[in-house]
């Protein structure tokens, strides 16, 4: 068996009855036991459940009754996704012993698709407080160099996918928490359009900025995972009532004819990126150009103009969610989370409304900028992963991040690997699409990814 299979490859082999889901699951379990004491990507390994799921998938395989391309695929969930009967902690002392009675909508959907549940994954505390060393469990570490940060908050998912411990996993993205780990761990991750995938049963951080989405080794795998996440949920107030699209419909369409806008000032002026990051983006643009895409630069408001209302909204909404606990148990939170949210207590009602008004203006600006284009491109992260103990506490206030603009405007945004920079650490770019046009984002990402050889290389820790 290939030691590192993608979901697409494993699914095809299982469908052809050439790969045992039990063997695949055991392979992942063995790898988890070998390396996760270094990576800390799992908070809880559900070995018995995983093998039971794998055996059930194997029975379906032998009966030619597989449920679809995810049947028998080992996955895991960020530990803010409620899992019935399985501890869901938010990586926090406050929910250390919390066991939900119901699955979140996405957990149920992936279970219905036949996935194999390997366990619950490390996250920043309640999806914002990290990397923290004062919580009941340690933070996840980057498989490319365990002294380095994974980014967050879907830190465990990023690490586990990059190390091949799972083939895919769930994340959430409120200001970049899927795309950040995807960028620093050298994998693919998509924040879909706001309202595409249900958030019900996921511990909330900021209601109007929270998105659920997948992380996986490849763009194609992200498309397969997201396909199994989407659909109308009448009990999620933010959900869009739309027919379920075929997200892989355009995957093989190539880059010819794509109209690409480059938000160059984001990554060259507003927050200049590392040389390797810039080279990755420029090489990608050269590739798209040669394939017949039309490319031009796009100018938006400065990136901090997007970040500021985003963080104000996030901080305020998150404070409202956590207010009772913060008042009763302030010191039970980790320092990063409680301090970041304490500022939310100082935001006035009028300031929140102003930020929300500004948000509408930014949505209009972004909509107009992408109107005659198919996708936008910029960086996902400014540079290679920093050391885990050198992550500034107030990084989000000091410099604008590349991901928040697309939480503020709700557009679908994909991060994918564009090579390796200093110390062999991954670099990345971000492809952004129009609302509910994830197919085009996947099309562009898949065209790039299949042309470049980055997906053949895995971290030295596991290869």
């Amino acid at each position: 068996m290939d030691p590192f299979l993608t979901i697409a490859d494993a699914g095809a082999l299982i469908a052809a009855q050439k790969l045992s889901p039990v063997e695949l699951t055991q392979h992942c379990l063995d790898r988890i036991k070998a390396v996760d004491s270094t990576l800390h990507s799992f908070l809880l390994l559900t070995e018995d459940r995983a093998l039971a799921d794998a055996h059930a998938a194997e029975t379906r395989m032998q009966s030619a009754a597989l449920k679809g391309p995810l049947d028998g695929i080992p996955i895991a969930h960020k530990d803010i996704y409620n899992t019935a009967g399985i501890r869901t902690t938010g990586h926090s002392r406050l929910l250390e012993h919390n066991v939900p009675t119901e699955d979140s909508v996405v957990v149920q959907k992936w279970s219905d698709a036949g996935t194999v549940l390997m366990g619950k994954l490390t996250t920043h505390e309640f999806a914002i407080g990290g990397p923290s060393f004062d919580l009941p469990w340690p933070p996840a570490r980057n498989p490319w160099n365990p002294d380095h940060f994974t980014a967050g908050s879907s830190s465990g998912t990023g690490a586990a996918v990059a190390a091949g411990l799972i083939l895919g996993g769930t994340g959430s993205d409120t200001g970049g928490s899927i795309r950040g780990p995807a960028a620093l761990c050298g994998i693919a991750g998509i924040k879909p359009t706001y309202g595409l995938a249900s958030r019900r049963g996921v511990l909330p951080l900021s209601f109007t900025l929270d998105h659920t989405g997948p992380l996986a080794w490849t763009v194609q795998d992200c498309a397969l995972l997201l396909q199994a996440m989407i659909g109308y949920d009448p009990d999620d107030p933010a959900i869009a009532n739309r027919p379920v699209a075929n997200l892989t419909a355009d995957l093989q369409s190539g880059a010819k004819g794509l109209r690409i806008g480059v938000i160059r000032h984001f990554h060259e002026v507003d927050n200049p990126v590392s040389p390797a990051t810039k080279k990755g983006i420029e090489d990608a643009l050269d590739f798209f150009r040669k394939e017949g895409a039309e490319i031009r630069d796009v100018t938006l408001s400065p990136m901090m103009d997007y970040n500021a209302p985003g963080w104000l909204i996030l901080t305020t909404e998150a404070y409202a969610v956590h207010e009772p606990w913060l008042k009763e148990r302030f010191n039970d939170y980790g320092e990063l989370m409680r301090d970041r949210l304490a500022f939310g207590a100082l935001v006035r009602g009028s300031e929140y409304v102003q930020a929300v008004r500004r948000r509408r203006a930014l949505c209009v600006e972004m909509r107009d900028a992408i109107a005659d284009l198919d996708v936008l491109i910029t960086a996902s992260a400014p540079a290679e992963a920093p050391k885990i103990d050198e992550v500034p506490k107030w990084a989000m206030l000091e410099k604008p991040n590349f991901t928040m603009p697309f939480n503020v405007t709700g557009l679908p945004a994909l991060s994918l690997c564009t090579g390796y920079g200093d110390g062999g650490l991954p670099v990345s770019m971000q492809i952004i699409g129009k609302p509910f046009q994830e197919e085009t984002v996947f099309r562009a990402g898949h065209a790039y990814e299949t042309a470049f050889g980055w997906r053949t290389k895995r971290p030295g820790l596991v290869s």
Partner: protein
Amino acid sequence: MSEISFEARVKAAGLRPNVSDLPSLEVLVKDLDRAAALLRGPRNYAEEPQSAFRLRPVTP
């Protein structure tokens, strides 16, 4: 936590009312504080607000 004087609260809010308006302002703020306390709970942390952020799809 020691009691915060109303004057200190007004100053912290950046307000500069006329001195003669302070007593009636203090009464108003006490009412608002009571109303705010009622709003604060208990409430399930997953309870969504009424207003939602929604995107409209863009016609290709």
